[in-house]
């Protein structure tokens, strides 16, 4: 690692390449401006990896200013050293050096939001007690000044036992140089003296340390402090190792004396916040004369009704952007990929290689990047909402409504995102601290009508639902609306079901910090966007690509020579009698017929015939069954497979495919696509989880196979049953 890091520093810029003076952990409350500062300090030298065994990204980077080079680790935000979520466990685990592959930090950069000193200083106290060299950065110092908030740095420094404090503005870089220089010096200095915020705890450690015997040598004082406050916690990922059995009795007696019947964590909060109030009274002055017009405006907007209007408006813009503004780009990508495929097919000799490159590789890449415009826009809006602080406001606004359907306010943005695509939506569920709420949201997401379902809906509705008025509604529109509704009903029903069964439990504490509105830092937004797109491409993109190639192979092999010979013979036949445009059309028809023949006896076609008995009760023949099977890894391929299998070509326009579908019959002459069958098929599409990328992301975000397997099986059974009922009742 070290040698790679050295290469990352542009040698020309600083004259020489040097080893970093050490590793610095960047720690702070959520939304305290930590990431902006991290980005400012490290510039483009960031590397991202995963912490072992969990889904949290580890961001490292190098800060080089003057003679100082430091390796920085950007830790997930936390309010204290008592973790409640996986993100917080990581942050605490790294600080105690318990995360494999991540070095114990040599120093700590505590990041505190100047406008939220009250909560920030809680963590700072605990960080100082870690007994590691530490520097404090006060972010948003410009916002604090604007708000008329004055902080007496020298006094605060004094109260923190001489720890150096630097007001910084990450957006402009103000104060950053001094901060890094200080870090460079502090890292080589002895740690600060402990602050006297809770003397009883310190004396308890003094007392317990010898009682722990030689075993205590393995624990730092800060770790013993955590043992005293938290007791023996159940072993979790990156949690402290267990205390030796002989330490239990002295630990219990110390806890008994310190806390009595009080909950220890409450006692800790009481003690530490008492100190904070003392300190704040001394160092912080607020001039109440400041009443800016923008502050008044924000106050007004935060009222329930203006806030609701703003919420609806911003969601409308998001949807407009995802569905309207992304379309030209998607069309462009589609056309580009089509041209590339055709180009490759014309250059390469006819046969397996040409088909592999054009229909496998290029189409596979195309099916990944076709989603990029929508995903980019969606990610951008989610990040903007996070960075302006609006995400928490939206959660606050809809919490009551979301709770009535078994979710929490924080579920709303992920759920709304899943109307475009479940993948970014599931990634966005990380903001939900409660695990049960988060899983319920993840399980509800794939039900929402994503953009990949729309082509199937559009095709079937246009072809089979009569285009006439029903009362004040257009019937086709009503069916489409009904399908959206079905998705919502399915998702909400699932969330409710889970919250009353597998995810049952007491309502979690919903204490949400509501950050003030702030203008996001474009650089941070850009870096975050890049980061998430990278994750999408790596996690979802590779899966989408691989399944596209697999579906291609299933549809291509085995290749029948007889069909190919027939095709060539038929072409030769028509070439004698026809010419010009007629000949071209005849060729195309023959090629399409041959493609359908090939598909019929490919693995995919055989699979369709093989499972036809299972799908026949739903009114599906082997062709529809084969298309549905092909759609299981990625539902958007269904229209193309139907096009090929019904011999109108994979790229056929909707009208000719729809016409062909209407005339499709069973061997005995009955029409395949009856209204009950089509409605059943539509409902199947609404509820079935046909998306390998979503499964991969669920797997990643829940860190287990249990949930993706459950989601897939549950949704498939649900879709199948609904389609069965609709067809059987409708046809009876």
């Amino acid at each position, binding site marked *: 690692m070290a040698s790679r890091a050295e290469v990352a520093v542009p040698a020309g810029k600083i004259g020489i390449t040097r080893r970093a003076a050490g590793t610095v952990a960047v720690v702070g409350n959520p939304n305290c401006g930590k990431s902006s500062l991290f980005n400012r300090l490290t510039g483009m030298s960031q590397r991202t990896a995963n912490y072992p065994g969990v889904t949290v990204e580890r961001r490292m980077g190098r800060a080089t200013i003057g003679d100082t080079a430091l390796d920085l680790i950007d830790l997930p935000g936390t309010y204290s050293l008592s973790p409640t979520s996986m993100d917080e466990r990581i942050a605490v685990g790294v600080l105690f050096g318990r995360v494999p592959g991540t070095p114990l930090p040599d120093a700590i950069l505590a990041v505190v939001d100047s406008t939220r000193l009250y909560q920030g200083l809680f963590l700072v106290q605990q960080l100082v007690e870690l007994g590691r060299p530490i520097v404090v950065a006060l972010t948003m110092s410009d916002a604090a000044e604007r708000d008329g908030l004055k902080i007496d740095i020298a006094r605060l420094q004094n109260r923190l036992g001489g720890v150096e404090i630097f007001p910084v503005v990450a957006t402009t870089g103000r104060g950053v140089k001094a901060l890094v220089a200080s870090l460079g010096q502090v890292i080589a200095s002895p740690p600060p003296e402990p602050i006297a915020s809770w003397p009883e705890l310190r004396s308890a450690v003094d007392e317990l340390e010898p009682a722990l015997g030689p075993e205590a040598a393995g624990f730092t004082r800060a770790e013993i402090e955590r043992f005293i406050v938290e007791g023996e916690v159940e072993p979790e990922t990156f949690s402290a190792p267990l205390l030796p059995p002989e330490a239990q009795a002295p630990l219990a007696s110390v806890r008994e004396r310190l806390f009595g019947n009080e909950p220890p964590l409450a006692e800790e909060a009481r003690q530490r916040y008492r100190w904070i*109030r003392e300190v704040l009274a001394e160092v912080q002055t607020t001039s109440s004369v400041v009443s800016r017009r923008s502050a008044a405006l924000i106050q007004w907007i935060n009222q329930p009704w203006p806030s609701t209007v703003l919420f609806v408006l911003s969601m409308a813009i998001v949807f407009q952007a995802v569905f309207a503004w992304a379309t030209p780009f998607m069309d462009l990508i589609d056309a580009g990929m089509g041209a590339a495929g055709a180009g490759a097919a014309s250059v390469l000799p006819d046969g397996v290689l040409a088909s592999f490159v054009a229909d496998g590789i290029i189409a596979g890449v195309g099916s990944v990047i076709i989603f990029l415009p929508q995903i980019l826009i969606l990610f951008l809006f989610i990040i903007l909402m996070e960075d302006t602080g609006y995400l928490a406001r939206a959660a606050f606004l809809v919490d009551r409504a979301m709770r009535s359907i078994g979710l929490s306010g924080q579920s709303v943005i992920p759920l709304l995102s899943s109307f475009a695509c479940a993948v970014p939506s599931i990634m966005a569920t990380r903001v939900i601290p409660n695990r049960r709420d988060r899983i319920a949201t993840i399980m509800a997401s794939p039900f929402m009508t994503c953009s990949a379902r729309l082509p199937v809906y559009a095709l079937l509705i246009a072809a089979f639902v009569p285009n006439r008025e029903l009362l004040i509604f257009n019937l086709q529109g009503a069916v489409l609306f009904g399908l959206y509704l079905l998705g919502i009903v399915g998702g909400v029903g699932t969330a409710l079901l889970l919250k009353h069964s597998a995810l049952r439990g007491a309502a979690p504490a919903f204490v949400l910090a509501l950050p003030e509105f702030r203008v996001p830092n474009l650089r941070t937004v850009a870096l975050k966007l890049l980061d998430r797109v990278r994750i999408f491409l790596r996690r979802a993109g590779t899966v989408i690509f691989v399944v596209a190639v697999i579906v291609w192979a299933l549809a291509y092999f085995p290749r029948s020579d007889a069909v190919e010979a027939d095709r060539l013979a038929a072409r030769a036949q028509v070439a004698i009698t026809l010419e010009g445009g007629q000949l071209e059309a005849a060729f195309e028809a023959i090629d399409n017929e041959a493609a359908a023949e090939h598909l019929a006896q490919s693995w995919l076609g055989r699979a369709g015939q093989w499972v036809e008995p299972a799908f026949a009760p739903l009114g599906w023949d082997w062709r529809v069954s084969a298309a549905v099977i092909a759609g299981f890894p990625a539902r958007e391929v269904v229209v193309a497979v139907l096009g090929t299998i019904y011999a109108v070509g994979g790229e056929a326009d909707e009208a000719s495919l729809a016409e062909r579908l209407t005339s499709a019959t069973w061997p005995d002459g009955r029409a395949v696509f009856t209204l009950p069958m089509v409605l059943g098929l539509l409902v199947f599409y609404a509820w079935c989880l046909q998306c390998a990328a979503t499964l991969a992301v669920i797997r990643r975000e829940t860190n287990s196979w249990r949930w993706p397997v459950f989601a897939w099986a549950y949704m498939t059974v649900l879709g199948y049953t609904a389609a069965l009922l609709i067809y059987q009742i409708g046809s009876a």
Partner: protein
Amino acid sequence: MVLGLVEQAEISFLRASLGGDPLEFRIFGTSISLRRDQARRFSVTQIGNDGEPR
């Protein structure tokens, strides 16, 4: 608790969300949100501008 809802902390009620829940409070210059049933578990004393109970 970790957000500073402890004894002696001065807190002011700002507003309720849609439908009267959750509630927004201001504590030492920062806003936090609590659900009604959680907020009910705290006992508070109304104080005047001088910081004395009214």
